[in-house]
C-alpha cells in the first residue's frame, strides 16, 4: 500500500498560549515495500509526522491518502491495523505477564480466532528473533529484548507499513545492529518500513529513500546517495570519509552503507 501526505499542517493546542506549529505543509509518500528513513533533530516534527501516517494524530489541515483514498474515510481500526506504529521506548507499554500474551494482544483485539492469534504471535516473534523468549515474563528480559517484544506486538497485526519511531534509542550498539537486521528482514518480506531516527549512521545502513525534516518541514528528500552527497553536513561517517577521498580520487563512486564503503575503498586501494 502507498501512503501519501498532501500539504499536512499540524498545530498543537491551537488558539491557546501553548500553540505550537509542529508540521508546516509536509508532502511526502511511503511507497510499497520500501524503507523510508525520516531524519531530523529534536523538535523537527518527525515524531508528529509519524503519528499522522495512521491518523493517530489528525492533520490540522491537509490530507493523508491511502492508495489514493482519503484515509479519514477508512475505519480507524482498519487503518491502525494496516499501518503499525511503534513509538519511542515502546517497551514502556508492555503489560501482559508473558511475552507471547503481550504480542497476542493486538491480533486478539482484531477479533481473530485462537489459532490465527497463535500463528501470528509465533510469526512475529520469529521475525524479531525472540521465539525462544515467548514464555518468559516481559520484566525478565534485557532492554534490547523488551524492545523487540514490543515491536513484535505491533508486527503481529501484519501491517503493510510498519512505522518505527527511534527504534534503537537507549540500546547498546550491539542490540542496535540486531534491530537494523530486523528492518532488513521486514523489507525482504515485503513490509514497508518507515524508520524515524536522529542517527544518520543507522539510517544510512538500511534506507532506500530519505526524508530530512527541519523545523516541521521537509528540507531534503531522495535516495540516501542524493541526500547525503548533496549536503555533506547531513552525511553519516561513511559518506564523510568517502566524500573526502573522492576529492582526490573521483573514481571512488558514492557509497553510503558501511559494506558499500568498505568495498569501494578496498577496490580503490587494491587497484
Amino acid at each position, binding site marked *: 500500500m502507498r501512503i501519501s501526505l498532501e500539504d499536512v499542517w499540524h498545530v498543537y493546542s491551537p488558539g491557546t498560549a501553548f500553540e505550537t506549529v509542529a508540521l508546516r505543509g509536509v508532502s511526502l509518500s511511503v511507497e510499497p515495500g520500501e524503507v523510508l528513513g525520516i531524519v531530523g533533530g529534536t523538535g523537527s516534527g518527525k515524531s508528529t509526522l509519524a503519528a499522522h501516517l495512521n491518523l493517530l494524530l489528525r492533520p490540522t489541515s491537509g490530507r493523508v491518502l491511502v492508495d489514493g483514498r482519503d484515509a479519514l474515510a477508512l475505519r480507524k481500526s482498519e487503518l491502525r491495523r494496516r499501518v503499525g506504529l511503534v513509538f519511542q521506548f515502546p517497551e514502556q507499554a508492555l503489560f501482559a505477564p508473558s511475552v507471547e500474551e503481550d504480542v497476542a494482544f493486538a491480533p486478539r483485539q482484531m477479533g481473530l480466532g485462537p489459532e490465527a492469534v497463535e500463528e501470528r504471535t509465533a510469526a512475529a516473534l520469529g521475525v524479531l528473533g525472540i521465539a525462544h523468549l515467548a514464555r518468559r515474563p516481559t520484566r525478565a528480559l534485557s532492554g534490547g529484548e523488551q524492545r523487540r517484544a514490543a515491536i513484535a506486538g505491533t508486527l503481529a497485526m501484519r501491517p503493510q507499513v510498519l512505522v518505527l519511531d527511534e527504534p534503537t534509542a537507549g540500546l547498546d*550498539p550491539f542490540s*542496535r*545492529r540486531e534491530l537494523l537486521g530486523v528492518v532488513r528482514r521486514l523489507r525482504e518480506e515485503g513490509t514497508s518500513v518507515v524508520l524515524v531516527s536522529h542517527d544518520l549512521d543507522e539510517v544510512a545502513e538500511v534506507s532506500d529513500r530519505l526524508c530530512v525534516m527541519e523545523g516541521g518541514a521537509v528540507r531534503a528528500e531522495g535516495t540516501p546517495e542524493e541526500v547525503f552527497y548533496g549536503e555533506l553536513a547531513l552525511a553519516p*561517517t561513511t559518506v564523510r*570519509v568517502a566524500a*573526502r577521498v573522492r576529492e*582526490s580520487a573521483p573514481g571512488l563512486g558514492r557509497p553510503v552503507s558501511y559494506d558499500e564503503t*568498505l568495498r569501494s*575503498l*578496498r577496490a580503490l586501494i587494491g587497484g
Partner: protein
Amino acid sequence: MGPNGGGKSTLVRLLNGLLVPDSGEVAVAGHDPVTEPFEVRKRTGVLFQNPENGLVAPFVEDDVAFGLENLGVPREEMRRRVAEAIRSVGLSGYERREPHTLSGGEKQRVALAGLLAVEPEVLLLDEPTSMLDAPGRREVLRRIGGLRRSKTVLHVTHHLEELLEADRVLVINGGRLVAEVEPGRLMADAALLEENRLVPPTVPRLAADLGLGSCRTPEDLAGAVLRRVWEGSGAEIR
C-alpha cells in the same frame, strides 16, 4: 565497558553503598561505603542513565541545591554554589524552569550540576548518554570532558568513541574484570570487542577492516586511504 548484565551498574552501586558486597571490601577515599555511606557520598557524585528519574525538585535550581541541603550547607553558600554549578553546565537562565519542560540532554546537565555543586572528588557516570539524542549527548560529553584532570571520573558506556580519551579502559563481562587496556589497543583488538559485544565506531572499524592502523576522524582515515593509493600506484604524495 562490557555487555548488558555484565556487572557494570552493580559495580557503580557498590562504590557508593547503594549495594552491599556479599564478600570483599570497597574503599573510596579511605572510607567504606557500607559503614560510612555519608562520608563516601559527600565525595562521590553519581550520574545515572535516566535523568528523568533522578531529578527531585520541581524547579531546576531547587534540584541543584538538593545535595547541598542534604549536607547542611548554609543558605548563603548554597546560593553561590548553585549559581556557579548551573553556570558551569551552561544552563544559566534555566533556574526557574521545570524539569519536565527540558530536553533529555538539558535534564542530564541539570543532574550533573547537582553533583558538581557538592564538589565531589570522584564522578561515577553510569551510561549518562544512552538515553540522549546526538546533540544532547555531545553537550553532556563536552561538560564531562571539561572536568578531566580536576576530578577522578569512572565512565560506564556502550559507546567506544566516548572513551577514546580515557587513561584506562576496564572490560567487565559475566561479573568479572576481563581486560584492562588502553582505548587504542581495545579498538584494534577485534576478538576482544566481539567477545564482549562491543561495536567500534565507524572510523576505527573501517580503518581496521582496511588494515590502515589507528585513525580517529573521517579526515584522518581519508588521508590514510589516499596515501595507500598513491604508494600503490607509485605516484607522488601531494
